[in-house]
């Protein structure tokens, strides 16, 4: 009896009980983890600090000094219809597989998540932040907004004008004639030919880019 009640035995029993309770409780999944992070990061979504204008994304695409990762979280059908050059299609449930890559992004790394509107991309942003807290942003208005700005009428069904961005429902609102993927003109518009837009820059790099010119 005295052996059972000595401090070492009590300590060992306590550690075992704590470990068993931990196993029963489990570790937080991405959704629970986002719940823990909401007080700190939820405001960035609520105040739209991470929604970037299409013109800012275009600037990022053409900036060779940064390490840009574009995640397209739409389904395969919409991806085949249209997607940005250099975008990577990934389903929400496959995002955990990107953890190591996101963790090891350089200080010049920027992640932009796109979907047809903002619904799916915002969900993906939460998961990505819960996974690795990268420097991540969401395309404002989604690809429907992008195509309203950079889309070419000839690519779309006759008589189609700009898509309504009101009451987003996750659908692609641009009826393309053909599923050309990244071969549409809007998949990588020429920054110097498109109409310049005024926007508020929101992307903050974790390291200043040393701009060099000439032969440097």
């Amino acid at each position, binding site marked *: 009896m005295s052996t059972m009640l000595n401090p070492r035995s009590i300590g*060992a029993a306590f*550690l*075992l009980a704590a470990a068993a309770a931990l*196993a029963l409780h489990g*570790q937080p999944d991405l959704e629970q*983890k986002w719940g823990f*992070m909401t007080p700190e990061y939820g405001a960035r979504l609520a105040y739209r600090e991470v929604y970037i204008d299409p013109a800012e994304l275009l600037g990022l695409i053409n900036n060779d000094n940064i390490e840009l990762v574009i995640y397209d979280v739409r389904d395969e059908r919409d991806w085949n219809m249209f997607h940005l050059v250099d975008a990577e299609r990934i389903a929400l449930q496959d995002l955990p597989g990107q953890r190591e890559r996101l963790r090891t992004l350089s200080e010049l790394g920027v992640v932009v998540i796109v979907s047809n509107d903002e619904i799916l991309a915002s969900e993906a942003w939460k998961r990505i932040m819960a*996974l690795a807290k990268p420097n991540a942003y969401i395309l404002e208005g989604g690809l429907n907004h992008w195509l309203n700005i950079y889309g070419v009428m000839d690519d779309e069904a006759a008589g189609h004008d700009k898509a309504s961005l009101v009451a987003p429902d996750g659908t692609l609102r641009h009826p393309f004639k053909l599923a050309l993927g990244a071969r549409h003109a809007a998949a990588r518009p020429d920054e110097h030919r498109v109409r310049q837009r005024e926007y508020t820059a929101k992307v903050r790099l974790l390291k200043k880019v040393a701009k060099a010119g000439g032969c440097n």
Partner: protein
Amino acid sequence: MAPFDIVATLGVAGSYLVYLGIGCCFGFILESSGFGDSRKLAAQFYFRELRVLKVMFTAIVVAMLLVFWATALGWLDYDDINVNETFLWPGIVGGLIMGVGFILGGYCPGTSLVSAATLKIDGMFFLLGLFVGVFAFGESLGYINEFWNSSHMGRFILPELFGIETGVVVILVVCLAIAMFLGFGWIQRLIYGRGDPE
């Protein structure tokens, strides 16, 4: 949610004070546990005294439970804690070299610092050897660079190795620690006819 960016919160000078405080606490615990004495450390390898195993494994188990309970309760983001990346074969070879050095010299790098801090001559010489070894390694790295960077597995932890839940791994590690305490104690009594003093 921890871990906190103490450099951003307290500034560089403030963060150094925190590091100093943690270092002092760590050193105090090591010294007061007897880790500044090479005879006590080496005795572990002959089962004469099991304090190294008991103190270190207890610390590991308690820290592990605190880390994963804090993560489970949302107080800590485990993914933000630095975990040394795994380089399997260099790690195995390095571990063997360090183990041999530990038996021969009676110290590991940390405990030799503790020993030197209490002005023990053997600790100071071990520390001197440590610096010579660090220098020699740095100078010869070019010859072994390929091996040194081989079998890289990234941030690789036990739940990934075994493909089981973190909580189950935690139970297994706690059971392993208790089994080692009991098993090594049994060997100690078998060889020397006594256990560690209470």
